[in-house]
C-alpha cells in the first residue's frame, strides 16, 4: 500500500462521529447551526468530506442518535395485526384434524379451468409478450412509448426506442401511468349534478341543446381544452368552428411552459420553441431550469447531458442558479442558491459580464459577482459550445436574456436550435383562463366544455373558478378521475385512458406521434376525447379509430394510404415529421428591451410554487406508486412540505415537522416545515398537486381527509410561480413527515481494516475532474486494495461451464439525478407493492431499488450525490450463510437468488445484509387487490405473500426470456447459445434516460458492463467487507471551475 492518506483526494462518506461530539440540545435553530458547523469540521478529515443524509444526522441531534441506535426503525418488528401465522397454523392443524389426514385430497387444485380463445388474435402466443407503439400526453406533448402486453393485457410501459425524443427511455410519470389504467378509483359512470346517469342520458339532452346554440353561431359556447397539438383533434375543432363559427376556444394547464415560447418571441420577434443540444454544449448555465427532470424533452436532455459526464470524453460543466434544490442541481458543478426573483438579476449580471450590448450590470454581492464573472469567463471561453437556458418558472424576459447570451456566445444553431412552437394556437397559461373568466362574468357563456385537467383545483385561487363555473348553466367535463372539477360540473363524462383509445399528437420536436390502444376500455361508460368532440358535429357515431383514420386519409390522400398507415401505427410516429429548424437571430439586439421588462425584484420572504416531482401538478394524485416514490431531495413520501433553508428556518424559529401558517395576500395555509439544505434563503417552496379533496381512504394522511396540503390555495394569477410578501406564523402543532432512507443505514464506524486508509467509510464517491485526470489511479487504489483483505466468508468455487454466463451491473453515479424512473420501472416490472405512509414510517417500504441521497459540505451550501442501490449480488453473499432453510442461494451465473417458496421469514438474511437491500413482506401487501389491479401484475414474476423476503433478482425473468430465445436459435443451428450483449435489459436499465445503469455478462471482457467494470472509476460498494458485489458503482466526477475552487488543483476537495 503505497498511497499515503494525505494523497487521497476522494470524497468519501464519513462515519458518524462519536456520541460525545453531539451538541448539547439548546433551543433555537441558530445554536444548532453553529454547533453543526463545528461538528462538520470535526468529522471532515484530510481524506475527504463528510456526507450526511439529513440535517439531524449532520447536526448529530439526540433524536437522530436515538433513532439510529438500532439497525431497523422503531416499529419495524412490531407484530402485525390481523390473523398472524401462528394463528393460521393452529387453525390449519385443527382443520386438518377435522378433515382427517387420510382422506384422498390432492396437493393440487383439481378444478382449475383453461379458457380457450374462440379465435386466436394474430401472432399471439400465450405467455409471449407483445409490444405495441403508443403515446402518452403530458401537458400537450406526446411522449412515445412501447407497451408490453400479455394476451392483450398491458403490463409495462417503456420508451419507444425508435422515437427521436424518447429513444427507449421514459420518465417516472410515464412508467407509473399504467397504474392509472387499472386504478380502482377511476371514474366509470357519467354524472349529472353528481348523480350517476347513463351516457345516453347525457347525449340525449346535450345534443339537442347544442342544436339550440346554432342560432347565434355558438357565441355562448366555450371550450377549455387541455393543451394539445393533435392534428386529428385540430381537424375536429376546425369542423366544430364551421358549425359554431362564434364558439371560442381556450387552453390551459397549471404547469404551462408558455414562458419558453414567449421568451423566444421577446428575443427573436416571433414565438419559437427552443431545443437544447447538450451533446454539443461544453458549458451549460441554467437559470432555474430543471431541464433534466422537467418538461417534454427532459428524457433527451438526460441522455445528451450525461453522455458528456465521462472523464474519457470531453467533460461538460453545469452552472445552476435556482432557489429549490432540484434533481438537475444534483448534477451541477456549481450551484448558486438565490430566490427565484433574483434569478433575473443573475441573468442580467451574466449578460453584462458576457458582454451583451445594452445590458448594464446590476449590483450583486461580491461573492455572487465573483461566481457570475467566473461563469461568464467560462462561457466566453466555450464560445459556441456554451449555452444559457432558463426554466419555465422564469418570466419571458429572463428567457430572452438567456437567448441573448447564447447568441452572443455564438451558440444559436449549435447548442440551441429553434422550431415553430408545438403548442402554437392558444395561450396555455393563466391569461387564457382570465379571458374565459371575463366571458363568464359578462354572462357570455352558456355551455362550457372542459378537457383541461381539473381547473377547479389547479386554477389560480383569485379566479374563483369554482364560483365561476356555477354561473355557467351547462358545463361538461371529462377526466380519468372524479376530481374537484367533476364535482362542480353539470355533466361529467369519464375519460378513456391513453391505452384505451386512438389518437395522435405531436412530440416536443413536432414529430407526429400516434396513440394506439392496447385494450378495450375497461369500463363501458368511458369515452375518448375525439368521441366527445364528435358530439358537437351532429354526425353519426364514429369510433376514435375511425376519426383518426379518416383524418389522415383526408390529409394524405387514399393512394397508398394503407401502407403508410400501417407503418405509422407500427412505428408509433411519422418519420421526419419533426418541425424544421428555424433561423433565429436578433436576441442580442432585444436584450435591452428584455432587461426593461424584467420584473422588479421585491424584498421579503418569497413563496415558491413547484410542480411536484412525485405527482406532477396533481394529475397523478391518485397514483399510489407516485405518491410513494420519494421526493428526490427531501425523500418525503405521501406528503408535501414547506421547504426552507436552514438559515431562514433559524430566523423563523421553526424546525422540520413544525406546522406553520403560511400567510400570503390575506390567505392562510397550514403546512409542515421541512428544512432542506442548500435551499435559497428567505424563500419557501411548496409543491403543487397535493391536498385534493375526495382522496380515497388509503391515500389519506393521518387525521386528514387528503394527502398533504393544497399549495394552490395561495397561487394567484400574477404570481403563479413565485412572489414575495409571504409571512410565516408559527403554531404549536407538529406533523410527522415520513421519509425513506432515514432507515436502512449502511453507515457505521469505520472498519478496522479501513482505518489506515481513511477515517471515513466510502459509500457514494465523488472526485473532481482535475484530480481524477492527474491521480485517477491513486484515488482508486485504496478501494482496489481492500479486495485482498481476508474475509470470513469463504470464496465460492469458480463457476464455469458451457453456456454459463456471469451477470453483473454497473451504475454510474455521475449520470444519476435521482429522478426515480428506475425505481418505478422496477416496481411495475416486478409486482412490488405499494405499502402506504404508515408502513414506510416503520421502514417497511418494499422497493427493491432505492435511491439514496447524500448531502455533503456546509449545511447552507450543501451539495448532493445520489446513489441507486438494489441487491448487488455479492459473490460471497453474507445473506446466504445465515439462511437456515437455504432460501437464498447462489446460481452458477452469479445471481444471488431468492427462493420464495422456501422462505420461512426468519429475516436473518436482511439482518446480515450490509447493503440493506432485502425487503420483507410484513403484511399481505398483494392481497385484497381489485380485479383491475390484479390485471397490472406481470405474469412472469411471482406475486409474493406475507412472511416472505424479497429483493432485486437482476430481472431474472428477462434473463430467462433472452436465454430461451438464444438457446432455441442455437438448437436450430443459429448462433451461439450464449446470450449476446444487450439482449438482457433490466427494467431499471431500460427506463433510465441517462443510461446510468448497464447490465450484462461480466465474464466476457467485450461487453459494455465489463468495460465499465474495468473503468478506473468503478468500485465495489463496502468493499472492505469482502463481499465482492457484482453490481459496481462508478465514481461520480465533478468538473468545478478552478477559478471558483481555489483548492481544487492541489489539495483535497472542498471543505
Amino acid at each position, binding site marked *: 500500500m503505497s498511497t499515503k492518506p494525505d494523497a487521497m483526494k476522494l470524497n468519501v462518506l464519513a462515519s458518524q462521529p462519536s456520541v460525545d461530539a453531539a451538541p448539547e440540545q439548546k433551543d433555537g435553530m441558530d445554536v444548532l447551526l453553529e454547533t453543526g458547523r463545528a461538528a462538520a469540521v470535526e468529522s471532515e478529515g484530510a481524506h475527504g468530506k463528510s456526507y450526511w443524509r439529513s440535517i439531524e444526522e449532520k447536526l448529530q441531534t439526540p433524536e437522530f442518535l436515538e433513532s439510529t441506535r438500532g439497525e431497523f426503525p422503531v416499529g419495524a418488528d412490531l407484530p402485525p395485526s390481523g390473523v398472524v401465522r401462528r394463528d393460521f397454523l393452529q387453525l390449519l392443524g385443527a382443520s386438518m384434524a377435522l378433515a382427517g*389426514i387420510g382422506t*384422498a385430497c*390432492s*396437493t*393440487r*387444485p*383439481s*378444478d*382449475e*379451468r*383453461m*379458457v*380457450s*380463445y*374462440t*379465435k*386466436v388474435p394474430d401472432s399471439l*402466443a*400465450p*405467455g*409471449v409478450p407483445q409490444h405495441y407503439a403508443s403515446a402518452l400526453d403530458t401537458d400537450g406533448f406526446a411522449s412515445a412509448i412501447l407497451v408490453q402486453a400479455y394476451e392483450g393485457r398491458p403490463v409495462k410501459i417503456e420508451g419507444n426506442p425508435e422515437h427521436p425524443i424518447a429513444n427507449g427511455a421514459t420518465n417516472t410519470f410515464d412508467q407509473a401511468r399504467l397504474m392509472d389504467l387499472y386504478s380502482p378509483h377511476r371514474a366509470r359512470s357519467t354524472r349529472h349534478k353528481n348523480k350517476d346517469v347513463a351516457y345516453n342520458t347525457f347525449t340525449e339532452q346535450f345534443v339537442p341543446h347544442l342544436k339550440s346554440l346554432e342560432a347565434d353561431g355558438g357565441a355562448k359556447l366555450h371550450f377549455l381544452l387541455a393543451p394539445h397539438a393533435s392534428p386529428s383533434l385540430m381537424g375536429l375543432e376546425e369542423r366544430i368552428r364551421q358549425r359554431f363559427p362564434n364558439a371560442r376556444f381556450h387552453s390551459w394547464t397549471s404547469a404551462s411552459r408558455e414562458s419558453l415560447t414567449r421568451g423566444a418571441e421577446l428575443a427573436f420577434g416571433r414565438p419559437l420553441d427552443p431545443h437544447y443540444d447538450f451533446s454539443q454544449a461544453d458549458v451549460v448555465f441554467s437559470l432555474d431550469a430543471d431541464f433534466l427532470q422537467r418538461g417534454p424533452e427532459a428524457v433527451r436532455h438526460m441522455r445528451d447531458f450525461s453522455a458528456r459526464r465521462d472523464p474519457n470524453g470531453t467533460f461538460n460543466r453545469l452552472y445552476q442558479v435556482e432557489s429549490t434544490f432540484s434533481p438537475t442541481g444534483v448534477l451541477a458543478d456549481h450551484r448558486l442558491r438565490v430566490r427565484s426573483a433574483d434569478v433575473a438579476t443573475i441573468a442580467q449580471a451574466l449578460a453584462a459580464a458576457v458582454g451583451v450590448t445594452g445590458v448594464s450590470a446590476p449590483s450583486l454581492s461580491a461573492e455572487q459577482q465573483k461566481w457570475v464573472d467566473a461563469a461568464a469567463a467560462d462561457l466566453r471561453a466555450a464560445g459556441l459550445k456554451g449555452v444559457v437556458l432558463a426554466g419555465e418558472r422564469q418570466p419571458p424576459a429572463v428567457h430572452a436574456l438567456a437567448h441573448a447570451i447564447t447568441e452572443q456566445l455564438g451558440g444559436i444553431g449549435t447548442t440551441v436550435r429553434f422550431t415553430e412552437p408545438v403548442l402554437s394556437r392558444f395561450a396555455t397559461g393563466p391569461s387564457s383562463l382570465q379571458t374565459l373568466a371575463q366571458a363568464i362574468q359578462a354572462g357570455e357563456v352558456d355551455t362550457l366544455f372542459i378537457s383541461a385537467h381539473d381547473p377547479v383545483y389547479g386554477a389560480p385561487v383569485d379566479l374563483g373558478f369554482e364560483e365561476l363555473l356555477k354561473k355557467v348553466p351547462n358545463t361538461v367535463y371529462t377526466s380519468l378521475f372524479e376530481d374537484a372539477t367533476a364535482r362542480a360540473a353539470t355533466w361529467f363524462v369519464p375519460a378513456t385512458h391513453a391505452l384505451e383509445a386512438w389518437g395522435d399528437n405531436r412530440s416536443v420536436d413536432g414529430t407526429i406521434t400516434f396513440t394506439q390502444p392496447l385494450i378495450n376500455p375497461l369500463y363501458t361508460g368511458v369515452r375518448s376525447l375525439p368521441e366527445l368532440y364528435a358530439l358537437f358535429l351532429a354526425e353519426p357515431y364514429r369510433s376514435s379509430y375511425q376519426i383518426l383514420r379518416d383524418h389522415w386519409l383526408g390529409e394524405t390522400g387514399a393512394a397508398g394510404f394503407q401502407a403508410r398507415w400501417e407503418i405509422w401505427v407500427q412505428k408509433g410516429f411519422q418519420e421526419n415529421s419533426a418541425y424544421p429548424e428555424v433561423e433565429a437571430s436578433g436576441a442580442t439586439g432585444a436584450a435591452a428591451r428584455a432587461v426593461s421588462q424584467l420584473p422588479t425584484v421585491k424584498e421579503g420572504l418569497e413563496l415558491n410554487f413547484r410542480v411536484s416531482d412525485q405527482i406532477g401538478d396533481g394529475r397523478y394524485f391518485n397514483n399510489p406508486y407516485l405518491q410513494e416514490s420519494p421526493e428526490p431531495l427531501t425523500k418525503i413520501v405521501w406528503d408535501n412540505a414547506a421547504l426552507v433553508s436552514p438559515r431562514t428556518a433559524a430566523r423563523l424559529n421553526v424546525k422540520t415537522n413544525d406546522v406553520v401558517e403560511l400567510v400570503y395576500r390575506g390567505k392562510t395555509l397550514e403546512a409542515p416545515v421541512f428544512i432542506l439544505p442548500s435551499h435559497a434563503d428567505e424563500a419557501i417552496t411548496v409543491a403543487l398537486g397535493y391536498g385534493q379533496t375526495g382522496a380515497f381512504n388509503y391515500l389519506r394522511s393521518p387525521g386528514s381527509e387528503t394527502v398533504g396540503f393544497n399549495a394552490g390555495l395561495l397561487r394567484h394569477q400574477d404570481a403563479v410561480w413565485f412572489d414575495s410578501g409571504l409571512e410565516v406564523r408559527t403554531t404549536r402543532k407538529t406533523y410527522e413527515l415520513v421519509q425513506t432512507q432515514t432507515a436502512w443505514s449502511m453507515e457505521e464506524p469505520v472498519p478496522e481494516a479501513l482505518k489506515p486508509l481513511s477515517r471515513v467509510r466510502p459509500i457514494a464517491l465523488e472526485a473532481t475532474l482535475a484530480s481524477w485526470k492527474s491521480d485517477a489511479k491513486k484515488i482508486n487504489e485504496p478501494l482496489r486494495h481492500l479486495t485482498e483483505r481476508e474475509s470470513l466468508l469463504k470464496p465460492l468455487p469458480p463457476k464455469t*461451464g*458451457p*453456456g454459463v454466463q456471469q451477470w453483473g451491473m454497473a451504475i454510474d453515479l455521475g449520470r444519476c439525478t435521482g429522478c426515480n424512473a428506475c425505481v418505478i420501472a422496477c416496481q411495475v416490472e416486478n409486482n412490488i407493492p405499494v405499502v402506504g405512509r404508515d408502513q414506510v414510517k416503520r421502514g417497511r417500504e418494499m422497493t427493491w431499488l432505492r435511491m439514496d441521497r447524500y448531502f455533503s459540505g456546509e449545511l447552507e451550501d450543501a451539495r448532493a450525490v445520489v446513489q441507486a442501490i438494489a441487491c448487488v449480488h455479492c459473490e460471497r453473499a453474507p445473506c446466504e450463510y445465515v439462511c437456515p432453510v437455504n432460501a437464498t*442461494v447462489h*446460481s*452458477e*451465473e452469479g*445471481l444471488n*437468488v431468492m*427462493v*420464495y*417458496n422456501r422462505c420461512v421469514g426468519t429475516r436473518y438474511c436482511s439482518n446480515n445484509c450490509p447493503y440493506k437491500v432485502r425487503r420483507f413482506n410484513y403484511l399481505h401487501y398483494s392481497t385484497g387487490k381489485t380485479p383491475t389491479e390484479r390485471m397490472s401484475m406481470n405474469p*412472469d*414474476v*411471482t406475486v409474493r405473500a406475507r412472511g416472505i423476503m424479497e429483493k432485486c*433478482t437482476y430481472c*431474472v*425473468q428477462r*434473463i*430467462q426470456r433472452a436465454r*430461451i430465445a438464444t*438457446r*432455441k436459435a*442455437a*438448437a*436450430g443451428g443459429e448462433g451461439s*447459445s450464449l446470450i449476446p450483449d444487450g439482449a438482457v435489459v433490466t427494467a431499471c436499465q431500460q427506463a433510465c434516460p441517462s443510461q446510468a445503469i448497464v447490465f450484462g455478462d461480466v465474464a466476457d471482457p467485450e461487453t459494455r458492463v465489463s468495460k465499465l467494470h474495468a473503468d478506473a472509476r468503478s468500485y465495489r460498494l463496502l468493499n472492505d467487507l469482502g463481499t465482492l458485489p457484482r453490481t459496481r458503482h462508478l465514481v461520480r466526477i465533478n468538473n468545478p471551475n478552478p477559478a471558483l475552487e481555489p483548492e481544487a488543483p492541489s489539495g483535497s476537495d472542498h471543505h
Partner: protein
Amino acid sequence: MLVTIPALALGGLMVWVRMPDANNQFHPYEQPVQFDHRHHVADEGIDCRYCHTTVEDGPSAGIPSTTVCMSCHAQIWQKSPYLTEVREKFFNDLPIRWVRVHNLPDHVYFDHSIHVNKGVGCVSCHGRVDQMGAIEQVAPLTMSWCLDCHRNPGPNLRPVEEITSTTWTPPAEAEARTALAETLMEQYDVHPRVSCETCHR
C-alpha cells in the same frame, strides 16, 4: 409412544406426498366436451401441433380455439351431438372452459418451447395421449422428477423430427442408444440448468 406417533404421522405424510394420487397422477377428468385424443391422434393421425400451435414458440402449448375445432367440424360430424357444446360456443363467440389436467404450482415457470426445440418429445411428459380417452397426468410433475431429467437429459432426447411422435422409441441396443443421446446432446447444444432461478422467479 410420544415419539413414534408423530414420527409415524410425519413419515406417513412424506410417503403420501410421493404417492401418485397426491400428485394428481392417473386421474382422468371429465371435460366440458367429450374430446377423444385416441380418435384424433391415433385414428386420424393429426399432429399435436395442429391444435397446440404455440408449443414451439412460447411457454404455453396453447389450447386450440373453437375456430380450430370448427375448421374441420364445420365439414364433418357437423350434426354430432358430441359437438353441441363446441358449436354453441363457437356461434355465440364464447370460450370453452376446459379442465386443467397438467397444473404446475404458480411459482413454477415452465416453457414448452425450449423443451421441444431441444428434442424432448411430447410423450416424455404427457405419456401416450393417443391411448387416452380422457386426458390424465402420467408423470408426477414433481420437482425431483424435473431435476432427474435436467441432470441427465440424454435418455429423453429424440430427433426433433420425431418430437410429436407417440410411437418413436430409442434404439434397442444400449450402445446405439447412448450414441444417439450423445449426438443429440451435441447437435441441440443441450446443457440443462438446475439453478433455482431457471424455473422460479
